[in-house]
């Protein structure tokens, strides 16, 4: 082989080596650790091999069930509302206007700031004693609530926070998609006498459906990856009311100190996330196509 034929491998080697060591190896390690009953503070060599016992335990573990259920409910409410609001706002406000870039700059701020900071801000706003939300609800005659201390209200709080943070993302993606549509087709449908609703339902939305699908999948994956905002906002409580699967794994590993069992739940999480990612690959991986991007 000539030097020139080998050079692609030289160029990809460092990145691939780091990704294998830092992402692929830990994933395999999670599979491996899930077979052992390893506790924090003990040596791994002393951890007993338990085979697939963790997985059997997981199948009937109500805490895991509850956490999966919380994650699915959280995903359902946040994504439904974010998609609906984001798409509706984008359709209403898609027309290019002067100053749009300033508004877009503002809209991406919640995505740029640290999740820790997002969690802190909303923990303050939802605070039962000095929180601003209770104060203004009091103004309209609603009793102060212990937002983060009641299961349903705490769940509402994490959904609300997520909607604040992520609706702008959907909004911006959909606007970009709408503005990239070829104007001839839009004109043609108008000439054909489609009214505003028909125009949106039968022309615009179908044309951006691949964008909507990818946005949906990305958000769904994020729901399974999310833990930092909830870690700060509620810590997963009260009880397990806001303990998303990622946070459950973290708490299992480092609060109840069951590293092996937490790894078994990690395996479940990996399978879910990879299944969803596979959906994105099918929907279109831009790295694969050589031609245009």
């Amino acid at each position, binding site marked *: 082989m000539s030097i020139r034929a080998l050079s692609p491998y030289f160029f990809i080697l460092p990145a*691939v080596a780091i990704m294998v060591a830092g992402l692929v190896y830990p994933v395999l390690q999670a599979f491996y650790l899930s077979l052992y009953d390893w506790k924090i503070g003990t040596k791994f060599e002393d951890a007993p091999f338990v085979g697939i016992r963790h997985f059997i335990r997981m199948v009937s573990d109500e805490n895991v069930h509850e956490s999966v259920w919380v994650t699915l409910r959280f995903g359902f409410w946040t994504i439904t509302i974010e998609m609906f609001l984001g798409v509706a706002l984008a359709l209403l406000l898609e027309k290019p206007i002067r100053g749009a870039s300033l508004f877009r700059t*503002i809209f991406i701020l919640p995505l740029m*700031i640290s999740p820790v900071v997002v969690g802190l801000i909303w923990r303050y706003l939802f605070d039962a004693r000095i929180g601003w939300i209770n104060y203004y609800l009091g103004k309209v005659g609603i009793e102060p609530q212990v937002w983060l201390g009641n299961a349903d209200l705490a769940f509402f709080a994490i959904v609300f926070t997520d909607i604040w943070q992520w609706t702008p993302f959907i909004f911006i993606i959909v606007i970009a998609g709408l503005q990239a549509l070829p104007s001839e087709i839009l004109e043609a449908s108008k000439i054909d006498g489609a009214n505003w609703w028909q125009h949106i339902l039968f022309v615009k939305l179908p044309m951006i459906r691949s964008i909507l699908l990818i946005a949906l999948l990305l958000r769904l994956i994020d729901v399974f990856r999310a833990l930092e905002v909830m870690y700060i906002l509620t810590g997963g409580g009260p009880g397990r009311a806001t303990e998303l699967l990622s946070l459950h794994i973290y708490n299992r590993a*480092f609060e109840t100190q069951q590293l092996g069992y937490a790894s078994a739940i990690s395996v479940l999480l990996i399978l879910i*996330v990879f299944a969803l990612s596979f959906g994105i690959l099918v929907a279109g991986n831009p790295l694969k196509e050589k031609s245009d991007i």
Partner: protein
Amino acid sequence: MIGQAIGGRQAVIMHYASLAVLALITLMPIWVMVSTGFKNDVLVQQKEPVWFFFVPTLGNYEYIMTRGNFDVYLWNSIIVGTLSTFFTLLFGGFCAYALARTEFRGRVLVANSTLLVRMVPPAVLAVPAFAMVVNFGLNNDLAVLTFFYTALNLPFAIWLLFGFFKQIPVELEEAAIIDGATPLQVYFRVLLPLMKSGYAVAGIFTFRIAWNEFILALLLTGRKTRTLPVGASGFITDTGVEWGRIMAMGTLIVIPPLIFTFFAARQIIAGMTAGAVKG
């Protein structure tokens, strides 16, 4: 459309009004943080919110900067952020270049797995990373954090840079190759200068993730190697939260991402939408 129904001028006013309301909803919580950081304890603890008109104090900032290890945390965050960004751009750029410009056995595999590993949840990394650190005795080392941030950021950076390489005409490289340039010379002399904006966008995304990340940092750092987000969470204690101080700290953490956003919003949005809109 709506414009025709209501009349052009009113529609434009409605348009701006709606955007303004949405912008306020977005900004209000951030303003709550910034303003609370400048309030004294009495104001912070009082039930009635004060939005704008109060006598600002620098007491919280003075406290967090002089007590505790703020300077150490800040330095750690800068080091980890800068180094992981540097390595991500260097190696990610190499990899994206090879994927965009050459055909080689395994190319599709690398491309697909890159997208797949991009989605690995940080929670999944937590236990194995902890195990690696414990088993290899690497406790509290900033190098470990830098390594994991580089790994976490590489897939997205490769993806983004790939798109930028695709926009550069091949002819430029071909001319250089005919003149006898090696692949590395082509990369550094011909392409690098043309890739400035690509590196800027990828760099912003990478630095932001490293700067903001919390859960791995919490796990892999000790008293001397904490980063700013971990330091901030230290103000949450069993007896309560020191709101004034923690909001001041939050404001400081937000400054770099805020600056990036205002100077490069267009590029950031292009990066965010690239995957969905053009995929």
